[in-house]
């Protein structure tokens, strides 16, 4: 269960301050996949970074399972499995060693780590490259390794920042199945993307973000109804107010 309330974040930049996030707030429930949908530069990544305590908001409040993020960041990080926008893995370690390293940093013992890796490798279908050094991995293999690394501590809440970026059709399908499994296990999954179809295929609820603000929240059907449009892409373009940007 994740709760965000009225988040604001401003960055200093050369051409004056950039107000990247302006009052974003939504709720992500357990046993649901919440999609964060928005064009590039809408403030998705910044919002998620505040959620996983990498940045502190200028204003606003975040709660994870009832714990205030500002009060106890390590406890919050323990409850989150994070696949950040930056997902570099160590290329001189094997995929297994990459995951083990993070497991140890989470304070897990070796037996638990081995069991978790076993389960994740099965679920993510990464058996044949698990013990290879990650140098030369394909994008899909790298992403799977990064996801396994993010989930090794069996977190209740899972945050994935554009997980399907650069993946082919079959890998994306496999990943969708994996996320549905996470949902059926009762976890709270937040998933960000800039592709409407992607979000619609998977999410129970969609939060549309544009220009640092929440534009709409609802199920795909609710959003269709709200705009009176049938095509999901049109719905997204209308809600995110992108028609002006297109021209």
């Amino acid at each position, binding site marked *: 269960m994740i709760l965000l309330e009225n988040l604001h974040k401003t960055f200093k930049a050369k051409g004056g301050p950039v107000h990247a996030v302006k009052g974003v707030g939504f709720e992500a429930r357990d046993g649901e996949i919440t999609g964060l949908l928005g064009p590039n530069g809408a403030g998705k990544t910044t919002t998620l*970074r505040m959620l*996983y*305590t*990498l*940045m*502190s908001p200028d204003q606003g409040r975040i709660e994870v399972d009832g714990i205030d993020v500002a009060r106890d960041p*390590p*406890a919050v*990080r*323990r409850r*989150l499995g*994070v*696949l*950040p*926008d*930056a*997902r*570099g*893995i*160590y*290329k*001189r*370690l094997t995929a297994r*060693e990459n995951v083990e*390293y*993070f497991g*140890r*940093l*989470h*304070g897990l013992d070796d037996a638990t780590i081995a069991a978790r890796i076993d389960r994740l490798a099965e679920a993510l279908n990464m058996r044949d490259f698990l013990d290879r*050094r990650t140098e030369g991995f394909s994008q899909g293999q790298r992403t799977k390794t*990064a996801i396994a*690394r*993010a989930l090794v501590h069996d977190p209740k809440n899972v945050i994935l920042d554009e997980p399907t970026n650069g993946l082919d059709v079959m890998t994306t399908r496999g990943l969708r199945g994996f996320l549905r499994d996470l949902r059926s296990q009762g976890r709270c999954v937040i998933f960000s993307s800039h592709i409407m179809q992607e979000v619609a295929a998977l999410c129970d609820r969609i939060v549309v973000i544009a220009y640092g603000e929440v534009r709409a929240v609802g199920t795909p059907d609710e959003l269709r109804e709200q705009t009176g449009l049938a095509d999901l892409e049109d719905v997204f373009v209308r809600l995110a107010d992108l028609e002006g940007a297109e021209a």
Partner: protein
Amino acid sequence: MKTVWIVARKELVDMFRDRRTMLISLLMGPLLVPVMLLGIGSMVESRMRTQMESTLELPVIGTEHAPNLVAFLEERNIRTVPGPDDPDATVRQQEADVILRISPEFGDQWRESRPARVELIHDSSRQDSQIPVSRLMTVLAEYSGSVGMLRGISRGVSPEAGFAVQVARRDVATPESRRAMALAFLPYLLVFFSFLGGAHLAMDATAGERERQSLEPLLATPARRAAIMSGKILGACLFGAMSLVLMLVAFKLSFQFAPGSLRMINVSTPVMAMLLVVLLPMVLIGTSLLTLISASVKSMKEAQGYMTVLMLVPMVPTMVLMLNPVKDALWQFAVPFLAQSQMIMKLVRGEVVSPLEWTVYMGAGLGAGLLLWFLASRMYLREKLAVSA
């Protein structure tokens, strides 16, 4: 604490798998330094020996004015050759170390028992000419003295009346300290390698990791940032210490098998162990400083830009001491780089370091390292660090 060790171990594994980089950072120094030390050292020695003992070839202008003096020089293993027309230019062009000019009045002045004039032309800024000049000066003084004495005797004056002061020299240089003179650059090399031995790992673990985009997920784990950073510093320190140990071993072996008197340098195991202790604070200072720099710059490239300056830093005290030697004082043991130079010189010269000096030294060295560590950990807490460009 556990986190620190987990991170340090991962960094070392990562480093050791990068075979080529590892070999360069770990073995280059230990292989190169002995060659340099021994090469330069034996060059200096053999040069000194040939200059002291071989026949000195001396260009002399106006040989005909003082045949006695020339004969005396020949007796003292100095062979005269006809001098050039323009002695100043010849010396300046380094074609001769020293030239003797005997003035045409020499004969007349000699016969009238007045001080007869000779002139030495040399370049005092050239190290190389020091030995020939002093050799010639000594021989001339000897000649002047013995002739003066004979003149006194012929006039019925006691020869001793001519010497108001008798100077006796006593050189207190121990064999070790004389060797150490030839090894003036030794502290620089040792300080340099301990200061920057872990540099590559330290920079790669922070600036490199950020560039490869793996710092953000790392900082999203529950591990405390200060602990993660300390682990990286510890890893770099262990690597630096390893390279330092290899260096000292190489150093010990090469001096044991060195030719001639270089073998006299004290490379006994206790001295080597003390050198290791002396240099460990330097390893901490170097890796903490580089971690601090890496955490505050935008890219690996920018961090590497600082390396050029850092390479020069250990040279400063050596240069200052060369130009302006200062007496041993306690404060020197508290100044980073200068302190290391002093301690290394004291140890290889076989001098005793007092407990007070040890305390001040270790206190100041570790203190500086911890201060840098603290500053680096402040840098690690910045929001900007995690967000890759």
